[in-house]
C-alpha cells in the first residue's frame, strides 16, 4: 500500500501543538525524610509511601507527616495535573500512595484525621457506568475530602438517606444513560422536601447542562476534574444557585 510522507492536509496533531513542557515536582519540605515521603506520593508508589511514613513516624508526629509530607506531595501532583503535565493515572496512584500513608498516621493517632468535608457520590439507579464516578472519587480524595462512595446502581432513597445521615457539603451523581438520569430530579426533590439544600452536582455522558439546570439543586458537571473545585466552593458556603451561576451557563 502507498503511504504519504506529509499528512498536514489530512489531520493536525493538536496534541503535539499544545504539548506541555515537562516540569519536575517542586521541593515541598526542608526535612529530608518528609521530602522523601512527599516524593513517594509524587511517584505514586504506595509501598514506598507506607515504608517511609513508618520511618517518619518514628521521629515525627502523625499530623506533621501528613501536613508536611503526604499532603504537600499530593498538592504538587494536583498542581501538575492542573497545568496539564500529569495525567489521571498519576493522580490516582499518588492518591493511593497518600492514602496508604494517611492510614498509618491515623493508626498512630488512634483516630481518623480531619477531612475538609464530606461529599456523597453515586452512580444513578439502573446505571453501571461508574468510571466517571471512580475518577471523581479519586480526585476528591486526593484533595482532602471525605468521600462517601455509594457505588453504582444506587436507588434514589439510598442517596437521600446518605445525605440525611452524613449531611455532606455536596452530593454528586453520574449517569451515562438517558433512561437512568431521570433519577436525579427525583433525588433533588426529595432533598428539597427534607430541607436539605445540598448542592447536587450531576455529570456523566448522558447528562446535559439543560437537563441538570432544569431542576433545583442541580449543577452540571462537565469534567470530573471540576469536582474538587466545586467541593471547595460548597465548603466555603456557596449555595447551589451561586455554584450554578459560577460553573454553568
Amino acid at each position, binding site marked *: 500500500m502507498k503511504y504519504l510522507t506529509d499528512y*498536514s*492536509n*489530512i489531520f493536525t496533531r493538536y496534541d503535539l*501543538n*499544545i504539548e506541555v513542557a515537562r516540569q519536575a515536582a517542586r521541593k515541598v519540605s526542608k526535612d529530608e525524610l518528609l521530602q522523601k515521603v512527599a516524593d513517594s506520593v509524587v511517584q505514586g508508589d504506595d509501598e514506598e509511601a507506607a515504608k517511609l511514613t513508618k520511618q517518619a513516624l518514628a521521629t515525627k508526629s502523625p499530623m506533621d507527616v501528613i501536613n508536611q509530607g503526604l499532603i504537600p506531595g499530593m498538592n504538587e501532583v494536583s498542581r501538575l495535573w492542573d497545568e496539564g503535565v500529569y495525567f489521571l493515572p498519576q493522580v490516582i496512584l499518588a492518591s493511593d500512595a497518600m492514602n496508604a500513608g494517611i492510614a498509618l498516621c491515623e493508626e498512630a493517632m488512634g483516630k481518623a484525621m480531619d477531612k475538609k468535608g464530606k461529599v456523597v457520590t453515586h452512580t444513578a439507579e439502573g446505571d453501571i457506568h461508574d468510571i466517571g464516578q471512580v475518577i471523581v472519587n479519586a480526585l476528591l480524595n486526593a484533595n482532602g475530602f471525605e468521600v462517601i462512595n455509594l457505588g453504582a446502581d444506587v436507588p434514589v432513597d439510598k442517596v437521600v438517606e446518605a445525605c440525611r445521615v452524613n449531611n455532606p457539603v455536596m452530593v454528586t451523581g453520574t449517569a451515562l444513560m438517558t433512561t437512568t438520569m431521570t433519577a436525579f430530579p427525583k433525588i433533588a426533590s426529595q432533598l428539597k422536601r427534607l430541607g436539605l439544600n445540598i448542592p447536587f452536582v450531576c455529570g456523566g455522558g448522558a447528562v*446535559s447542562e439543560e437537563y441538570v439546570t432544569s431542576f433545583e439543586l442541580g449543577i452540571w458537571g462537565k469534567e470530573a476534574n471540576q469536582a474538587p473545585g466545586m467541593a471547595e466552593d460548597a465548603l466555603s458556603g456557596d449555595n447551589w444557585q451561586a455554584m450554578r451561576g459560577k460553573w454553568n451557563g
Partner: protein
Amino acid sequence: MKFSSQMAYKSADEMIFGTAIKPVKAKRGLVFGGGHVIPEIVPHPRPGSEKTMKSLLREYERANGDALERCVIVGHPQLLIENEHIFQMTHNPKWGGEIAAQSAKQMDDYLQKYGLKAAYRATIADLRKPDMVNMRDSDYTREVIESFAECAKYADIISIESMGGKEVFDHAIIRNDIAGLLFGQAVLGGIDMEWMWNQIVAIAKKNNCIAGGDTNCAQANTAMFMAGGFISKDVPHTLAALSRAICASRTIVAYECGATGPTKDCAYEDPIIKSVTGVPISCEGKTSACAHADLCGNVIAAVTDCWSNEAVEYHDMFGGTTTAVFTEILGYDVAAMNASIDLGYQKEFQACLVNSDKYRGCHGFMLSPDNAWQIGKALVDNNESLYSRGKAAAIKCGELMLGDPKLKLSVFEKESLEGYMKDMKALPDKEADFIDMCLKKYSKVKGFQPKAYGL
C-alpha cells in the same frame, strides 16, 4: 454584467474535488479550491433561542464552539462554519452582525491556542417573499441589504438564497408547466439576482470580505424535494432535473456580477457553475441527510471544494452535540478525499463517487461531472439571454436523460419528459416574446408584480 461565454474547464475530465481554477483565500490561512476539500458545518439554533439577541448569541457560541472544539479533539485541520440567518438575525441586522463578530473572535482564539484554521460564512435570510412584498422596495429589502453590511465587517464570506421568481415557480411546479419554470427561475430569478448581487459584491469589496454565492434552493430544491425518493408521486424526477438545469442560468448571475465563491452548499447546480466559471464550490450530499434526503449523496461530491451538512438543529446526541457530531463526520469524509488527492488516487476516488449515483436517479445523472459540463456548455453556447441559456440547458439535460439507456426511467417519467421537451420546443425563440407571453399567462398568479422586476 456580461453573460459567460466560455467554459472554465476544457473538459469534465479536468474537474476534480478540492481544486478550482480560481481559488479563493480567506483569513486565517484557508484557501478554497486550493487543492484540498474543506468541511463546512451549518448549525441551526433551537426553537426558543431566537427570543433575544443574548439567548441567540449564546446558542451560536455553543453550536459554533462545539464544532471548533471537535476539530481539535479529532484532528481536523480546517473548518468553514456557516450560519444561515433565521428570520430574526436579518430582521434585526445588528443581531446577525454581533453573531458574526462573536464567531470571528472564537475562530481567532482557536487559531491562536491550537493552530486550527477556520472561516465564517454569514448567509443572510432573503425575507422578500415575492408574492408578499415588492422585491426592490420594501422594509424587508432594506433589512437584507443592511444585514450584508453588518455581517461583512466580521464574516469571511457572505451569501444569500435569493427568492426572485418564486411566486411563478410555485404556481408552475405543481402544474407540469415548464414555461413557468423558465420564466420564474431563469428570467425573473436572473433579473432579481443581478439587481441584488451588484449590491452584495459592492458591500463585500468595501469590507474586504468574500462575496460567496447564491443558490436556487427556493425553486430547484423545492422541485427536487417534491420529486423526493422512489415512492413519491408529487413531481416527476425528470421535471425536477430540468428545473435544476434551468436554474443554472440564474445562479451563475452571482459570479457574473463578481461573486467569487465558495458557492452556497445547497446549490445542487454548482457542478454546472464550476464547469463554466471555475469558482470553488460548496456541495452537500449524504452527510446532509440530517437536513433532507436526496438521490445523489456521493456524486454531488465529485467536483466539490467544500463539503457541507446543509443544516442541523443544535441538540445533544450520545456522541456530543449535533454540530460536533456532524463536524466530525464531514471532517472524516474530506480526510479520505484529501488523502486520495495526496496519494494521486483522486480520479479513482471520484469514479467511485460518480458510479455510486450516476444512474440512481435523474439528479445524480445530470450532476455527474460529464453531464454537468455538457449542460454548462449548452448554457454558454446559447448566451443571448437568461431565457435562451436556461432553455438550452434544460433541453440539453432532457436530451442527455433520454439518450443514455443506462438511466432507467419509468414509463410515466419518460412520457412526462417527452412532453416537457415538446413544450420547450414550442416556446418562442426570443426572450422578449417569451416575456410578453408570460406576462399574460401569469398575470393572475397570486402576488406576481412584474414591476418589482423592472418589467
